[in-house]
């Protein structure tokens, strides 16, 4: 099969799986997950084959795998869509395929396949466990299978379809289609346990917050389309003339060029999708969804899509950048990215929920990538995107494994008031869940950028080096964020796995089944190994002994391959220092936390700790500034005052006036005059008739008498007037 044809087919299996499960197999849990995993496997195989094809093409940047068809007839021409595999989409496809497949397999175990139905489980709520009686007649509480098991696999299949579609698209419009389908799935999956009001609220919040970004992005797409007449990536981004014109034409808005304004609109879409400040608020709440969802949304796919989008649009964003002075758009992107990186890591320090810490760390790491794009470090941003996807998927899945183990403990003690996600309820899980411990450790150290071994070190170091050389302010911000990252990561590892169990539930935690362990191990390999394919050539000792493959391969995507930063000792030392320093600090501060003891940081930070714990009160501020006014405008201003009050009031008034006029005609003209005359005529006639009635007796004799009288009278008159003859 030609590679182009295969690329078209990559997104198809998960979509088919979605429809098959929804329409036919939703009653069979086994069949549903088999179809879903099989579909993911097919897409995986297709992706790997395409990836290998892409690797063998030495000039993939110049002559990518592309295929185009006509889609919408518009005027005399067609709007075309198609698929494209260039270096950037090839590496994205690689990590998406791996993480998606791993998450599908993991979900089978996470949703307790093979366990009995729960005693009181209802669809729309997390399973609460089942009672079983073993051979000896002992009663046990065990985990129960998710009631909406099949539905879960349908949703994540659709989600995978959205991501594959986004990656293989050769144009912004179908990419946006994939982008929004993921948005829908994230809504459905965050609200998977929809009967919980908190999950329902989180789902709506996620959808609406990202939609703010999306409507701007839609404008950006419309703008780009009308400015260039196409949305094809290659025609715009690999075309010097188009970029030159877009970069030089002023847009008349904030001093931005047309390219700058389009880039800004598209970037706002990324701010929403990748949860950058100030649209970051949805992502931590999205933790309401089941853990594989968090890994899908917060690592492998959706949030990566935002960064992928600005990496795609990088030539447009930098169209008027000539290598010296940052353009206004780049300054905006860099500032937001760097600020978000630091800002989110300060919040992560004071969170106690194991998944929330990871959520904030995701926001922070995405900030790194965005900042890297802002300072023009294209390759470094792409590198961090890939490594982060691996180690963050690993961390989320490991944390899911931890929660799963804790839930085991909760069932054992039957204490349902205990929060199995609170790290202060854990401790000592290293011995109970050894594999999970090691994989979490690998993921955590990669996140913290532990020197040399981990993938996170290499990608983060590359961003820091570039920032140090071109934007010192960004460098110091990111270095500060890296220190905090290492600190809260070690805080998490220490509180969760080290020391002694702080609750009976942690005492009875249990290692998870193989379907969950296997993905963790596979992802661990990438969380370490993927860094070694991108070691800078100038790196002491290791440079040129390990491949610098990633930089060379991905750099090809651009028309002019980007210059890689020269090696510099200062950022490297800083990188090592903050990583080791943060990790040690975290361990020192938290190694002796006892059961019931408060966070040692609380004493150190005082009231600032409360502010951090409450995420700088952003939810409350937004509620006051945006949500409440919108509700007021809708409920009161538009519905009541304008529509019912003013417009309907005016109509009712018109109707009333018509009624008054009508009544006037009725009461002043119709009734007295016209009816009056009519009535008068009738009444008079009636009266005359009434008066005449006395002679209408019906007696012949009387009539005869009257006739006689009249005849006699007439005779008398006649005789008297004429005279007798």
């Amino acid at each position: 099969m030609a590679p182009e044809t295969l690329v078209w087919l990559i997104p198809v299996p998960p979509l088919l799986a979605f429809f098959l499960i929804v329409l036919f197999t939703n009653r069979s849990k086994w069949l549903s997950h088999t179809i879903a995993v099989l579909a993911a496997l097919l897409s995986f195989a297709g992706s790997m084959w395409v990836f290998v094809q892409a690797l063998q093409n030495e000039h993939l940047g110049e002559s990518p795998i592309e295929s185009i068809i006509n889609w919408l007839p518009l005027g005399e021409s067609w709007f075309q869509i198609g698929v494209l595999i260039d270096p950037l989409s090839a590496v994205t496809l690689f990590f998406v395929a791996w993480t998606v497949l791993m998450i599908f397999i993991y979900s089978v175990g996470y949703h307790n396949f093979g366990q009995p139905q729960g005693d009181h489980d209802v669809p729309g709520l997390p399973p609460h466990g089942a009672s079983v009686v073993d051979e000896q007649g002992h009663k046990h509480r065990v985990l129960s299978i998710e009631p909406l098991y099949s539905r879960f696999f349908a949703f994540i299949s659709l989600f995978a379809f959205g991501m594959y579609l986004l990656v293989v698209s050769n144009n912004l419009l179908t990419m946006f289609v994939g982008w929004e389908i993921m948005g829908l799935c994230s809504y459905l999956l965050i609200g998977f346990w929809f009967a919980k009001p908190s999950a329902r609220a989180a789902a709506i919040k996620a959808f609406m917050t990202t939609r703010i970004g999306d409507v701007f992005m839609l404008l950006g797409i419309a703008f780009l389309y009308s400015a260039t007449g196409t949305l094809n990536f290659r025609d715009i981004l690999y075309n010097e003339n188009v970029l030159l014109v877009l970069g030089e034409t002023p847009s008349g808005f904030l001093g931005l060029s047309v390219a700058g304004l389009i880039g800004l609109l598209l970037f706002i879409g990324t701010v929403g999708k990748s949860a950058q400040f100030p649209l970051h608020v949805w992502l931590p709440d999205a933790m309401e969804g089941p853990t594989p969802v968090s890994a899908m949304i917060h690592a492998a796919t959706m949030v990566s899509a935002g960064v992928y989008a600005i990496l795609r649009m990088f030539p447009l964003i930098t169209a008027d950048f000539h290598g010296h002075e940052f353009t206004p758009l780049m300054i905006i992107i860099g500032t937001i990215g760097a600020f978000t990186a630091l800002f989110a890591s300060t919040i992560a320090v004071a969170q106690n929920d194991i998944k929330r810490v990871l959520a904030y760390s995701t926001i922070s790491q995405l900030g790194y990538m965005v900042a890297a794009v802002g300072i023009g470090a294209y390759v470094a941003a792409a590198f961090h995107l890939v490594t982060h996807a691996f180690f963050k998927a690993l961390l989320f899945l490991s944390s899911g494994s931890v929660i799963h183990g804790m839930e085991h403990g909760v069932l054992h003690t039957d204490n349902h008031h205990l929060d199995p996600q609170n790290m202060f309820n854990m401790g000592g899980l290293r011995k109970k869940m050894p594999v999970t411990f090691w994989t979490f450790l690998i993921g955590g150290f990669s996140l913290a950028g532990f020197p040399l071994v981990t993938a996170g070190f290499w990608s983060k170091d590359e961003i820091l080096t570039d920032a140090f050389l071109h934007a010192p302010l960004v460098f110091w911000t990111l270095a500060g964020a890296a220190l905090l990252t290492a600190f809260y990561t070690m805080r998490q590892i220490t509180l969760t796995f080290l020391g002694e169990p702080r609750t009976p539930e942690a005492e009875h935690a249990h290692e998870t089944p193989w379907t969950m362990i296997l993905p963790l191990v596979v992802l661990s390999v990438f969380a370490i190994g993927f860094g070694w394919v991108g070691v800078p050539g100038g790196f002491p000792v290791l440079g040129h002994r390990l491949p610098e493959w990633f930089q060379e391969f991905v750099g090809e995507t651009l028309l002019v391959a980007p210059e890689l930063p020269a090696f510099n000792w200062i950022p490297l030392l800083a990188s090592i220092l903050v990583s080791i320093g943060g990790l040690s600090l975290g361990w020192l501060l938290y190694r002796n936390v006892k059961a019931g003891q408060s966070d040692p940081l609380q004493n150190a930070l005082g009231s600032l700790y409360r502010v951090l714990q409450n995420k700088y009160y952003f939810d409350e501020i937004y509620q006051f500034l945006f949500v409440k006014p919108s509700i007021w405008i809708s409920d009161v201003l538009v519905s009541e005052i304008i529509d019912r009050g003013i417009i309907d009031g005016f109509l009712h008034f018109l109707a009333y006036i018509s009624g008054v006029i009508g009544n006037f005609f009725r009461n002043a003209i119709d009734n007295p005059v016209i009816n009056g005359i009519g009535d008068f005529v009738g009444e008079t006639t009636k009266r005359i008739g009434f008066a005449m009635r006395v002679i209408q007796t019906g007696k012949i004799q009387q009539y005869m008498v009257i006739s006689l009288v009249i005849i006699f009278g007439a005779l008398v008159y006649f005789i008297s007037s004429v005279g007798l003859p």
Partner: protein
Amino acid sequence: MGLIDNYLLSLILFTPALGALVLVFLPSEPRSLHRWGALLISLIPLALTVYLWFQFDRSLPGFQFEESAIWYEAIQSSYHLGVDGLSLTMVLLTTLLTPLSILASFSIQDRVKPYMVLFLFLETGMLGVFLALDLLIFFVFYEVGLVPMFFLINQWGSEYGERTLFGGVKVQARTYASFKFMIYTMGASLGLLLAIQLIGVTAGTYDLVRLVEIWPSLTVIEQVPLALPVSTIKSIAFWAFVVAFALKVPVWPFHTWLPDAHTEAPTAGSMILAGVLLKLGGYGFLRLVLPLYPTESYQFAGALAFLAVMAIIFGAFGAFGQKDFKRLVAYSSINHMGFVVLGIAAAAFAAGSPQIDPLDANIALNGAVLQMFNHGLSAAGMFFLVGVIYERTHTRNLEDYGGLFPLIPAYGGILIFTAMASLGLPGLNGFISEFLVVRGAWAIFPVFTAVAMLGLLFTGAYVLKGIKHVLQGPLNEKWVGHLSEINTREIFVIAPLMVLMLQLGVWPAWLLDVINGAMTALFQMNALF
């Protein structure tokens, strides 16, 4: 097939009315006779329309399958029918939605015969508007459609609810809504009738094809009333047309009849009201206003775009502010139809501005017509689904539902699907038309388009609000055991709509191609330079 081909449009047009006459002479019982009879009758125009669709030559500009016969010789009015890509699309929408609405009406138990008879007459009325190429015939059908709808709302509308009028008088809600619908529309078409008379008398013909050639370039009018300048006369006539159609669409601030009429109408009535009757407005703009008044359209395009944006934004806010599920859906129509008018206004402006790329206007018009079709599908679907839940719970109050998803999973899935189509989710039909409108309008009215995005944002808010209250959250225990799943008949109503929503979202070329041909021709004819 010669005979059928020659009179195909008349056959499509009058089959429902003839069928209705047959039903009139049948006994009232059994009721199933009238249900199935009406359904079968309404399937005939659908089959004929499908045949027409394949016979229609999309490469030719202008009208096809024309029929002409003198109707009223003294005033030069003739029975002239014809279809182009625009009317064909609308006819397809009408003949598709009518059988589905009749199938949805099988749950009507009260006076089935007159209900079905009125419904079939309604179909003829609507089809007549889309097929007529004579202004007077157009107007006749335009008004004929009102009468059955008035009775459908007035007699079969919801039985509960009251509205308070000026001065504290209380009237039954369905009486209020039906009168508001009737009087409001009649009032606006009064101006339309006068303007049509003016055109007819001045130009000496009511034939639309000829008028489009004569009227726009007419600079001297012989019998000028009040000795007004020609441009003023034309402006007045233009606004008479615009107000009539704007009210029908409806454009803010002429929209308040809509939530009342849609909410109080029986389910199938709402489906047709939202699905087809609103399109008469958009169709009127495209068939009459733009071709007859290119100069005035260009002149006042900004004002029209402003009102369209107001409809988009206030429609969305209005929907978000409702507590009644059906009212929420009704307001969503205002929001969605705003995009139709925005596209039309943008094209009208482009027609007078040589510096604007005609492609932009073409895209905006394609989007507007496609949006009419798409909204027909999704709004009819949404009203039907509201009807399904209402028949089971006898409440439309969002607060009374709650967490029904586990009880009615299939209904829930269908509701989410349809709501997402209404929201404009990419991959489903609404997105493509909205994108095309935004794309076309952005190049012409960037500020209006940007502001309209606020409406698009709140589209999400109200759709999610509906889903939130009906399906999600803690289960309202009082419905346990009292709520049955969507039944087979109901699935037969919604399934064709869902298939089309998905199909048009993925591969709209078959429909868009027909629309595109008509819109390209329309714009070329319309351009002032």
